[in-house]
């Protein structure tokens, strides 16, 4: 969870980015897609968040939300969470592979299962499903999602 302090620091550093603070059990920083790379670079270099734990996507009714969980090896503690909103028709976001090499397979998985394209990714291919598979299964509008399981 990102502290209020971290958010204030980031907001003061990058006033042009219009960062928002998302409340909840795990507070996060909402950043726009085009500003993501610079903010990520700042997070890694200045704030020492050098360990990118996971890159996920969630398919909400009005948007596709990318969630980045960042940790610091040196100052241990909770994560810094970045969220990016993409539109549903053609979700596209910059790739952070140049900043954290480990995000490579995470982004491939997000492309494979959710359909979010990453700009600047060296090798954006399907990873868990085979080449030539049509569709992105984790989307809520994937055929078969509306099947009901019957539990007694």
């Amino acid at each position, binding site marked *: 969870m990102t502290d209020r302090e971290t958010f204030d620091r980031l907001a003061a550093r990058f006033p042009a980015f219009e960062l928002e603070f998302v409340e*909840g*059990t795990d507070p996060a920083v909402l950043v726009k897609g085009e500003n993501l790379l610079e903010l990520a670079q700042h997070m890694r270099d200045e704030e020492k968040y050098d360990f990118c734990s996971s890159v996920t996507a*969630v398919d909400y009714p009005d948007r596709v939300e990318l*969630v980045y*969980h960042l940790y610091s090896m040196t100052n241990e*503690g909770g994560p810094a969470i970045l969220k990016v909103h993409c539109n549903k028709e053609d979700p596209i976001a910059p790739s952070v592979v140049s900043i954290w090499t480990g995000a490579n397979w995470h982004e491939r*998985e997000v492309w494979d299962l959710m359909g979010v394209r990453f700009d600047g990714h060296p090798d954006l291919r399907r*990873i*868990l499903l085979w080449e030539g598979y049509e569709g992105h299964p984790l989307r809520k509008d994937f055929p078969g999602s509306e099947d009901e399981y019957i539990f007694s």
Partner: protein
Amino acid sequence: MTTLKTETFNLNMGPHHPSTHGVFQLKLTLDGETIVDVEPVVGYLHRNHEKIGEKNNWIQNTPFTDRLDYISPMNNEFAYVLAVEKLAGIEPPERAKYIRIIMVELNRIVNHLIAVGFLLNELGCFFTPMFYCLRWREMVVDLFEMTCGSRMMPNYFWIGGVSADLPEGFLPECKQLVSAFPGFLDELERLVTENEILQMRCKNVGVLPPEVATAFGCTGPLLRGSGVPYDVRRAEPYSIYDRFDFDIPVGTVGDVYDRYLVRIAEARQSVKIVEQALKDLPGGETATPKKKRFRPPEGDIYHRTEAPKGELGFYLVSDGSENPYRYRIRVPSFVNLQALPHMCRGHKIADVVVVIGSIDITMGEVDR
């Protein structure tokens, strides 16, 4: 003297292979016996776990997580149950917390034994160390069977506690196992660690420098073998780990031999934790009262634990209904496997198998 024109050739260590730890393909580009490039291809065991997780309700997902890393199922259940409890704000009773720690640490011992046994098997010891390690796994798995009825897919944890209390014979048998276990580790070390052929095969093979490991996002014995003392149980303590006294074994060079030593040392530390937990085990009930339908409040949460293979995290999004809206698992083997090409370049074919054995992957996790 003209130079000889040589070409690289591609070898496919395909999905059917005795030592790729499951169905997992490696495309090797070789120059003679030296490796120029490795490309792992995963996805042969993809079972669409995350989508099915969205169809199950919150309670049904607990046994479903057993199927992820089937060698240490207790850890998967633990991570999921902790995440849901954090989201819903439920606090299990004290006895349940201690029982959970005992089960999880016993499972860590099992996992490290299997990892070491299979690593030695791939080195060519022809199953002998594997049988030694599996003999001790049998004793731990007997304890599991005594408690929850099943050896491998325990289905033991509940959201709010554990499903059954420890049976009569558990405590004396567990104490006996825990007191005899360091002796077995000593025997294994005496037989194997100083072996010259093992040292020749494992030292300076598959070296992973600490900066590269951090950049790739590796965790677990892979990271600690490279010299970074990062353990989620100490970096962001969860459950009651802050009450126990244990050390973090850290390697120096970051090769296969270091990871092997780190795993054996971690097994010893787990035995220490189990001893402390057995000593302090309080009485009381083992689960909060269950509701018929479980609806956590809205919100999202990411909770991570230290599974034996690395950092296992669950990202859960709830929309207030009985099914998760998004059920995402951050799996350690999937992320650790990205470091494989870096570790294998310049080595021989025989080393690839050894390096995969030292990363310790389970395809059930990687492909979900």
